[in-house]
């Protein structure tokens, strides 16, 4: 199941030459990337929450219909795509290549649905007059923050969908291992995790009553 390289990494730290974290270098590398990317998003969200609290005239442009219904649906879709990714990783560990690829395609479909709904949300706001530097409701900071944070997240979703496509194709053809699927899963769950902060902080803090 594991190749020679992973086998060495799984040896005890005290038996010499092993990894203290008992995992392959790809997985460890992804964890390090996730920590650094967490700091990128943290910086954006810390700046956002600061601006949100310090500006009493922060715009509240999200009515129940469509913005909150859309963004809640997007959240559930993204969470569901995390569950299908869990199923893909489980299937890959059973060496069930067909099921793995199908679950990964389901995950990609979730990601694409999320992006479709999100872009509709974006165009809706743009039609109402929101741009990066200006909006009709209040402090002009809103546009920069909203499009900056959600755009950064959507870029991650897009990269995630492409990444899933590459790994699913390669794994289906026997070129990638179960570890590659698992590392891909870590990235996808991270994108989901970030949205768990973006959705409440950006949308639910600016609900139009």
């Amino acid at each position: 199941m594991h190749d020679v390289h992973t086998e060495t990494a799984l040896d005890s730290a005290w038996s010499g030459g092993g990894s203290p974290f008992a995992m392959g270098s790809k997985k460890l590398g992804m964890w390090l990337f996730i920590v650094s990317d967490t700091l990128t998003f943290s910086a954006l969200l810390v700046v956002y929450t600061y601006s949100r609290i310090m500006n009493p005239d922060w715009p509240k442009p999200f009515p129940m219909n469509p913005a909150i219904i859309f963004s809640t649906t997007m959240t559930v879709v993204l969470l569901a795509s995390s569950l299908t990714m869990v199923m893909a990783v489980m299937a890959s560990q059973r060496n069930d290549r067909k099921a793995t690829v199908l679950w990964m395609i389901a995950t990609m479909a979730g990601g694409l649905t999320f992006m479709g709904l999100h872009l509709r949300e974006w165009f809706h706001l743009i039609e109402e007059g929101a741009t990066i530097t200006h909006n009709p409701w209040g402090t002009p900071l809103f546009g920069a923050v909203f499009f900056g944070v959600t755009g950064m997240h959507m870029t991650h979703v897009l990269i995630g969908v492409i990444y899933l496509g590459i790994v699913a194709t390669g794994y289906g053809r026997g070129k990638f291992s179960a570890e590659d699927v698992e590392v891909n899963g870590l990235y996808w769950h991270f994108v989901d995790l970030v949205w768990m902060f973006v959705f409440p902080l950006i949308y639910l803090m600016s609900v139009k009553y």
Partner: protein
Amino acid sequence: MSTHAHAGEAHGASVGTNLAIWIGLVAITGLEVFLAYEELQPKVMLTILIGLSLVKAAMIMSYFMHLKFEKFSLVLWLIPAMIFCILVMMLVFFTEAFSSFPLMHH
């Protein structure tokens, strides 16, 4: 062979547990949307939402990213350093935020 046994069982929770975690995540999301319509003070709302988001993040990392089933040394290596870095970022903003409070209440 003990390493093999460990590698075999290191791969996390059952489908049922993952499904339960997913239902929990959707339920917390529902609670957040409900709270959004309670018209709370922004600072109170922000605190509650960040708290709930941290719970969701912990659930995703522990089960979906199976950090719970990795060696604990990995958690010790990654998480405290990350929290420290985020706190350093916050430090800058807290100083700024407190100095601006008198301006806000004019």
